[in-house]
């Protein structure tokens, strides 16, 4: 009897928690299609009276949403590709190449994980501005082309690579470059996928750096565009929610489809 009551209470608690946690998600998914008649009234409707796709076009009129979306795709794509490349090379050197002071070099990579980015953002702003790269794609991606996190995770995977396989490759005449790209990288795809998902999520979701380093709406990322929507048209929540829904499409897809990869990298480091 006690157990049945406990089970009921647990279900009830979970139900309430699920409703609370999912409320913002629900309002993004449904509110993006709700007109001002449903949303811009008090109290706003919970269930829409009629659905419209007009919010998306209206949001794209309020800010250059298509261009900003392209900017985000470009910036997050370049950062992800570059971090994968630099991390693979660095991890390879740390594990498979002769290196004097290996411990110290690895220490540098670990140390980069500890520096809060906000504490160095002013000098970086000055550097990028001095180089004339403020408000440009280069300025948006340049500080993020390498990753202590990616190198750290790949080093862990590479260290577990079987020595026999490596020796076999060497006997077959594979040099470092060939061994790295033909054997090591294909066999470490799960780790690479996990890193790619993390890097893409954090690059796509960046806020502080794109906020200060861009000046024109044409160069802003979609995250900054969202906030302009919320400042520009506070009276129409439908526009804002439509923008949020668009900005969420790639990250929702990654979180839903890539969850097993995400769990691999969970405790390897905080990347948000």
């Amino acid at each position, binding site marked *: 009897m006690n*157990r049945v009551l406990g089970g009921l209470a647990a*279900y009830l608690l979970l139900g309430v928690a699920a409703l609370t*946690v999912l409320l913002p998600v629900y309002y993004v998914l449904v509110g993006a299609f709700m007109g001002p008649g449903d949303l811009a009234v008090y109290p706003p409707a919970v269930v829409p009276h009629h659905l419209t796709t007009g919010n998306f076009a209206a949001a794209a009129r309020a800010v250059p949403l298509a261009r900003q979306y392209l900017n985000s795709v470009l910036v997050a794509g370049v950062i992800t590709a570059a971090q994968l490349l630099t991390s693979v090379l660095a991890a390879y050197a740390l594990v498979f190449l002769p290196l004097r002071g290996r411990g110290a070099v690895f220490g540098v990579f670990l140390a980069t994980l500890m*520096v809060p980015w906000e504490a*160095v953002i002013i*000098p970086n*702003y000055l550097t990028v501005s001095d180089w004339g790269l403020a408000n440009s794609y280069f300025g948006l991606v340049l500080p993020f082309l390498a990753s202590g996190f990616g190198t750290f995770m790949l080093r862990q995977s590479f260290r577990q690579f079987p020595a026999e396989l490596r020796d076999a490759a060497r006997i077959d005449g594979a040099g470092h470059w060939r061994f790295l790209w033909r054997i090591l990288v294909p066999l470490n795809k799960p780790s690479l996928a996990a890193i790619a998902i993390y890097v893409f999520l954090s690059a796509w979701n960046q806020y502080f750096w794109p906020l*200060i380093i861009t000046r024109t709406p044409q160069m802003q990322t979609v995250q900054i565009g969202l*906030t302009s929507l919320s400042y520009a048209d506070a009276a129409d929540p439908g526009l804002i929610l439509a923008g949020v829904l668009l900005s969420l499409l790639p990250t929702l897809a990654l979180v*839903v489809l890539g969850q097993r990869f995400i769990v691999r990298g969970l405790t390897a480091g905080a990347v948000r």
Partner: protein
Amino acid sequence: MPRPPSSSPPAEKVLAWVYLLPSLAVFALFLGYPLYRTFYLSAHGNDLFGAPTRFVGLDHYTALFGSAEFYRTLLTTALFVLLTVVPGVLGALVLVLLLEGRLRGVRVLRSAFALPFAFSVASAAVVFGVFYNPATGVLNGLLSHLRLGPAAWLTDPHHALVSVALATVWLNLGYNVLVLSAGVGSIGSEITEAARLDGAGGWRLARSITVPLLGPHLFFLVVVSTINALQSFGQINILTRGGPDHATSTLVYDVYDKAFANGSSDFGAASARAVVLLVVVLACTAVQFGVLERKVHYA
């Protein structure tokens, strides 16, 4: 671990540095040099455009620690950490304990609770901005159905920090649930099965087995959440801009406010605040490594 041969050709030694160079160059330019530069700027005055002028030593720091406003900023920062970390970790713990119990049909909820992980700080803040809207906000709308409210979520100095913290707790919940779920998954089912055979019910199992064994995961989460809270910026800038009446002005927001907000370029004073932030975050990291070093064995 595969080892390179003891007598490596010189070409291999060069190759190692070639492979390391891209990463090390980025770190040197955008982490190493700016670390030095932050200290340098914090010890110099600056003109209206932010260019450093003369050496002022510790003047920025003495001004900082001599102002009541700065202590208020530190207090707000500490409160924000408390208001996000404690509910965030405890809430996720309760959810995960319920999810990993033996209830039927709740597994699918784990993926649902992970959904906030897809939100950026900007998208979460913007959605909560819609929710908190005093005139047409969803939350006041819901309160009105319960014949409560309306509440001044962001415009009352006594509520604003709590409201921003609430959005942050929601944003972090997905990550926290995933971490603790992974932690529960790593507890061997032999242990929980044995306890069940000994007659332990759900509550007893959670209290005596699961939570103690989750210790390292909980500790990790507390430290990571604390560091995240200390660095939180987007939700504050979007929802309140540090207001009303500085009620949500944390250390990071103060850095932004002095350096970038409203055309301000007071890089010297802002850098002194950035150094304080650096010290606080590094202290948290040191605590993490100090404790984890003793608890976790790194292979």
